[in-house]
Every structure is written in C-alpha cells, then in structure tokens.
C-alpha cells in the first residue's frame, strides 16, 4: 500500500471540491489491513520531519513527567526575564476610572497643542545643573516648556519660509531668531538673561544635531535611503494604486517621458475624433438631403403612376412605407468596412428568420415597381440597367471628375508574375456619405464580394460592366 502510494503522484487538491471526512480507522483499512498502521507510522515520521516545531511543542506540553527537556527546547522557548519596579506605585497614580462605555480616542497630542511633548534628555539636565549652579532660577519643567516652544516656533518659521522637506535630505537649519522667539514667548515671563541662555543652548544643540530635537518634527529618511539604522521612511504605497503594474511604476524621468507621450497620443486621438465627428455630421446632413430628395421623387412617381394606370394596389402605400423604414435600418451600415449596400435593398438577406415571410412580397412589389417605373425614369436613374436592383442613396461615378481628381479605378484584371489572375471587376459609385467606392465582384457568381451565398443567385443577371 505504501509502495503503491509512492508510485504515483496524487492529483493536486482542489480547494473547492468537497472532501469526504473519514471518521473511523476502519474506513482506512477497507482495502488493506495494514494500511492504517502504515499510515499512522507514516504520519508520525512526517510529523517529526516536516514540523519539528510541532514535535517540540508536543514534548513541551507532554513533558511534565519528563525531567530532562531537550536542549532544543531550551533554545526554542527562552525564559523571559523581568523584575518588578519598586517605585511603580509611586510613579503611577491610582487616578484612572474606567468609563462604562468604550473609550473613544481623541485627537493626537500635536493637535491638542498644550501638552508639552518634549522630555529633557541627559544633556539638557546636565546643562541645567551647570546653569543653576550659578543662578538657581530655572526649574526642569520650565526648561522643558521653553525647549518645546522653541521647537514649535522654529518649525512654524520653517513652514512660513517653505523650508519644510518631506524627508531628511540635509541638515535642518534653525530659522527662529532670538528676538522673534522672545516676543512670541513673552507670556511665559522668563527673564531675558535666562531666555537668552536657553535660546543659545537650544540653538547650539540644534546645530550639533542638525535636526529638530522634538521627535515629531524630525523629517523621516528619504525613500531611497538604504541604511537599516534609519527607520520609518515614507512609503509610496500611501496612495495605493490599483494594479500591480501601476505599483511597479516609479516617479522618475522615464515614467514622466512615457506619460508625456501618452498625453501627446491622446491629444492626437482627440483631434482625430473631432474631425471624425465633423465628417459624420456632414454625412448625416448630406444623407438627410438625399432622403428628402428620394421621398419627393417617389411621391412624385407614385402620384404619376396612379394617374397613369388608374389603379391602386391595395396595401401598396403601407408596404412602401415599410420599405422606406427598412432603408433607415441600413443607414448606418455604410460605415462598416464590408460595404455591400449596392445590392442589399433588393436582396434582403434576412437578418432575422421571421422576416422571411414579409420579404418576398416586398421583393415582388419591388420588381413590379421597377417595371412600372421605367417610363417615368428621369435624372440619373434612367441610366440604370432595368434588371439591376434599385440602389438608393448612391450615385454613379463621373469619370471626368475622377480623372480630374487624379483617382484611378483599380486596374482589372491585375497581372502578377506574368500570369493572369482570375478576372475580377470593379464597379465604382459614390456612397451615401459622398465617398467614392469601388465594389469588387465575384468572378464566379458575378455578385459583389460577400454576397456569394446569398439569395441573389436566382436573380443572376449579366455581369455588369465597369462604368469607367
């Protein structure tokens, strides 16, 4: 059993898969009576190998009867050494009464302002002792207040001078002048001589330390400082970015250049988009004009027809208007790269199966209309091949204008390596938006490209000749 288990690698465990819980050892044994024993033994070995710390814990907790704990044990769990402080009860007063509700934090000391955050250090105490040997007129609490206030005032002076740096990049200078300090701290009513002495002691200390002596005001080390003895450097993480990629980005010259390039690209894209919007607006206007024109033409033609034949097809008006609305459906498709509007209206590839029924009568009506229209053809429409489907909103190309503009239709058929490619033809037209379009025709089916499988085949006609 043990061997067979080693001989293959178990499938990785899927954490979402529900695992059976086997409660009794008998369930383990069902296929091999020794399996459980092996498993238990193996568990023991594994425990000792992969988790020595757990074994240590086992020994530690079960070791009550064990008089000689292992050496390893001593290393793992050292005895913490501590003593009671005999002055504790004097130093800390019994003045705390726990409120019944949970305590809410107040603002930090810095915000409250009146708390004297500075504590004298050895140097201050030694200086004060020397100072008082001569005059005996300054107590430590007062000195603490003075040094604290000097630090705060100097910090404010540096703030006003815009000299606060976010990190420690060089010695922090003293900007506070004696007379300014004296004036600001008048309310402490310290004699001038004493104040002057304290000020010069403070200034001297500040210049030696090259940084504020109040810890809160000391700038943190720079982000790129790698000295492990300097601590609490700011982290860029403060403004947490959302993706790992963004987190990897640093604020350096390179990333600045990259961002500038991105900006340039975006500006260009915006200019392009503005031009595009303008073009589309113009196109829409042009198309609206064309629609109006066609409507007028159709109306005019129908009226003429009704007059001409004296017959009115029942339901004709309705179908006609439906046809008109389905043209509107196609109005947008001209912009797609696979342009095939030239054929579409008559073919009516069903976009939805349930349109099928309504399409056929439409086509029939359409053909009837085509036939009936012939006598009244006017303008550019009359040039059409009668078999050719009506292509609304497009116009034929004017070869002279093309020539004048230097536009050549694609050559047909192209010749490559002396061999003639299967012939294909192009037909030019002016699309709805006023663009010049050359439609390629499939040489086999003689239909426009993209229409090969269409319902068009039954309507096959003679191949159209290129207009140029």
């Amino acid at each position: 059993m043990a061997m067979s288990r080693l001989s293959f690698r178990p499938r990785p465990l899927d954490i979402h898969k529900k695992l059976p819980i086997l409660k009794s050892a008998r369930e383990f044994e069902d296929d091999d009576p020794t399996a459980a024993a092996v498993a238990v033994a193996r568990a023991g070995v594994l425990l000792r190998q992969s988790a020595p710390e757990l074994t240590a814990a086992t020994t530690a907790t079960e070791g009550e009867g064990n008089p000689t704990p292992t050496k390893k044990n001593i290393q793992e769990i050292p005895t913490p050494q501590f003593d009671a402080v005999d002055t504790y009860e004097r130093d800390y007063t019994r003045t705390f009464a726990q409120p019944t509700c949970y305590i809410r934090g107040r603002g930090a000391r810095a915000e409250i302002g009146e708390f004297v955050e500075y504590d004298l250090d050895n140097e201050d105490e030694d200086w004060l002792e020397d100072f008082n040997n001569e005059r005996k007129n300054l107590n430590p609490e007062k000195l603490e207040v003075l040094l604290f206030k000097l630090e705060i005032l100097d910090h404010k002076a540096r703030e006003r001078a815009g000299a606060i740096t976010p990190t420690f990049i060089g010695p922090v200078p003293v900007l506070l002048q004696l007379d300014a300090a004296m004036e600001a701290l008048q309310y402490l009513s310290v004699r001038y001589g004493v104040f002057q002495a304290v000020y010069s002691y403070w200034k001297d200390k500040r210049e030696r330390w090259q940084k504020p002596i109040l810890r809160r005001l000391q700038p943190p080390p720079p982000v790129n400082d790698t000295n492990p003895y300097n601590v609490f450097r700011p982290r860029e993480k403060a403004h947490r970015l959302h993706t790992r990629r963004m987190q990897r980005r640093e604020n350096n010259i390179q990333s600045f250049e990259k961002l500038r390039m991105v900006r340039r690209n975006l500006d260009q894209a915006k200019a392009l988009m503005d031009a595009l919007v303008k073009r589309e607006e113009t196109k829409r206007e042009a198309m609206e004009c064309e629609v109006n024109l066609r409507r007028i033409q159709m109306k005019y033609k129908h009226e003429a027809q009704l007059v001409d034949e004296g017959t009115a097809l029942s339901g004709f008006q309705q179908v006609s208007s439906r046809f008109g609305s389905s043209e509107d459906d196609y109005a947008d498709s001209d912009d797609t790269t696979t342009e095939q509007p030239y054929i579409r209206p008559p073919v009516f590839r069903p976009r939805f199966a349930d349109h099928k029924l309504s399409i056929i009568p439409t086509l029939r009506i359409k053909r009837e209309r085509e036939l009936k229209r012939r006598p009244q053809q006017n303008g550019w429409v009359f040039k059409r091949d009668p078999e050719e489907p009506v292509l609304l909103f497009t116009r034929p190309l004017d070869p002279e204008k093309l020539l004048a503009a230097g536009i050549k239709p694609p050559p047909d058929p192209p010749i490559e390596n002396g061999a003639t490619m299967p012939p294909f033809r192009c037909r030019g037209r002016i699309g709805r938006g006023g663009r010049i379009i050359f439609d390629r025709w499939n040489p086999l089916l003689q239909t426009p490209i993209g229409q090969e499988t269409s319902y068009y085949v039954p309507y096959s006609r003679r191949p159209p000749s290129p207009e140029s």
Partner: protein
Amino acid sequence: MGSMEASTAPENGTAAAAAAAASTVCNGAGGGGGAAAASNGGGVERRLRSSAASASWASHLPLEVGTRVMCRWRDQKLHPVKVIERRKSSTSSSPADYEYYVHYTEFNRRLDEWVKLEQLDLETVETDVDEKVEDKATSLKMTRHQKRKIDETHVEQGHEELDAASLREHEEFTKVKNIAKIELGRYEIDTWYFSPFPPEYNDSPKLFFCEFCLNFMKRKEQLQRHMKKCDLKHPPGDEIYRSGTLSMFEVDGKKNKVYGQNLCYLAKLFLDHKTLYYDVDLFLFYVLCECDDRGCHMVGYFSKEKHSEESYNLACILTLPPYQRKGYGKFLIAFSYELSKKEGKVGTPERPLSDLGLLSYRGYWTRVLLEILKKHKSNISIKELSDMTAIKADDILSTLQSLDLIQYRKGQHVICADPKVLDRHLKAAGRGGLEVDVSKLIWTPYKEQG
C-alpha cells in the same frame, strides 16, 4: 513592517534556568579580573593552573572578538560563549576595563548579552583564531561553493523561513543588542534583540518607557517628571473590545505617529525579524491591555496593514515578556481572525514567521480546524473551511497536510478525522488561551477618510 514573532510559549516550556539556580560554585562575585576569580576558586591545583592562565591572559586582555570562553550565566552555571563585540566599560584605559558582548553557543541569539570580565572564566579561553581572520586566510583556497556551504551550515536554527543570505545580513546588522533592559510600568524587562533607536539613545544600556504613551527616556528622573505631566492612561486610540479587565484598543498609525513609532521601537527589542524600515502610517495597531485603577497596561499588541494586497491580517505580534505564557498571544491571534471575519475576508499573517510565531499559528490553526472536523459530519471543501474560519486556504492545507490528515485514497483526497487522532493532535497543539467574546467586539473595518 517585516515579520512577526509571537512569544506565546506553551505553558510549561522550560524550567531549566530556575531549577539550576542553587547548584553552582560561587565564583568571582566581586573582583576585577582573572586573578580574583582564581583566588575564590578552591583547590591548590586549580589555583596554580588558573594563576598561570591569568598571568598569560593578562597580557592578552582585552579579549579579541571571536574568542571562545566559558561564561557564568544567570543560572550561575558556566556556559560556552563566543565574544561578538567588546567595549570600554569606563573611561580608564586599563585593558581589564572592557565589557564583552557574548553569544551563548547553546542558546538562541536572543539571550546574547553584555557581560563583565569577572563573569568570564579566563582559564577556559580557547586559543581559537578569530573567525574572520581564519576566513580571510582560507578563503583563497576555498571555492565559492565550499564557502557558501560552510556559511549555510552556520546559520542559526529556528529561522527556517528565511534564506541563509538574508539571515546572515540581518544578523550582521543586529548582532549587538544596544539596549539591555527597559523599564515599562511595573516591570523591568531584559531585552532580546537590537532595536534601531535614534542615535541619541545608543549610549544607554537601559531605557525608561512611559507605560501609556510609550515615550522613552534615559534616566529615571526624566520618566518621573514625564509621569507628572503625561495625560494618557490608555493607548491613544479607540477601545474596540472590553471583557472584564481586558481591553483592546485600535490605534491608527497615521493619527498617532509618535505612539506608533514608540511601540515599534519597543517591540523590536523582543522581535528578531521585525523591520522598522517603513513608516507607521499604513498600519493599525491593536493594543491589548489589562486595566486597573492606574490605567490600561499594555500586555501585547499586533499590527495590521490598513490595506493588504496579500490579504495579510497581521504584520507583527508580541506579548511582552512579563505577560507571556498566559494565553495572551493566542488571544491576539484569535482576535486578528475575528477582525477578518467581520471584514468578510480571509487573512494570513505576514511572512516570514519566526520560530515562536509559526508554533503559535500552527497551534491556533490546528485547534480551530480540528474542532470543526470533529463535529462536522458531511463532506467539506477546503474553501468552506476557509470561509468558516477566515483562515487562508493555503494555511489550512499546510496545517492539515503537516498533520497528515489529508490523504489520497482511491483516486481522491480524503480528510482522515479519526477522533482519537484528532484528540492527540489537539492535545499537542496546547490550550486555546483566553476566548475572544465576539459579542463584545464593537468595530467597523478601517475606511480611508475623505
């Protein structure tokens, strides 16, 4: 904020130090050097030997870094040590006036300390060449591979989660403890590790901490003066849990920067693989206190990133030495998972885990998971266990696998939950410590202001 290190030892871990207290030769309680030690020593033979030794060693004082010697430890027994560093103990220029920073080769690095010359038994000085000199001499003959192999075998036990190189670098930076003792409230505590206090504090073997705002000072009078004006009686944040005399405070490192930094300086004295490299702004500190009529006394804390991408729910954890072995560490771990449950997230402690940290966490995971498996009847997925406990799936897998409870049978994984086996593992994992009463936790997950 680097790694974490829980200091919750099983209740009856070691009694070795206490048990051994009475049994030694009392040697060199006063006296300045080798000769004094010898004169108290006893037998004629020994005196002869030692005086000879001291005569020869007097000329070698001060001892070189790297010297191996026996040293009297706090159990009053002699233990082998290696000199790591030395310094002048006074302004006099006598070669005997040095103190030595020694590593007890039998013990964990956290017990390294400064000792006076009279604690060293100079008879036992080994004429061992300084390791660094030796390294230089042999490095030419050794291939890089051989050298690395040697380096790797020298790595201390108990930090299996760190690679050898970073561990050695770390030890080099922090090899000498700067602060030997601190006074914090009721207790004077021996420290375990180096902590990067501002340079102004480096000349002080003992620091006095204000128990509430954790400001630290070099002299007792400074602390006493501070206590008269200190306006805090509890950590400066919001109380989010109270059960009996036990309270938990949440302190925002951004709002209370100096407090957060003070706490980090203090904690580093007891945590080996903690880094103070980055600022405390991005962390919340959960400070556990025992409260009485003097105030709320910190017993331990854990820190937590405000937003962790790696789904860390704990960065550093510490129970202060006087409060260790009382179940507070287990309480802190359990509390960190209760916060994760309230956030509706799974969590995991930041890596690497220290020796004691891994031990505590394995214990917690084992207890929580095995209690569920004992009661659970139907099939269960690792993901479901994770959702129930807020323990990350990886930690569940590693725990169950290390106990060999997940086995592959007949083409599928199964969980082997024989009650007897579970009980055995549960017993090994130790007791659960103080319970977290979730109904007393009044807390909303951190949200960025503005």
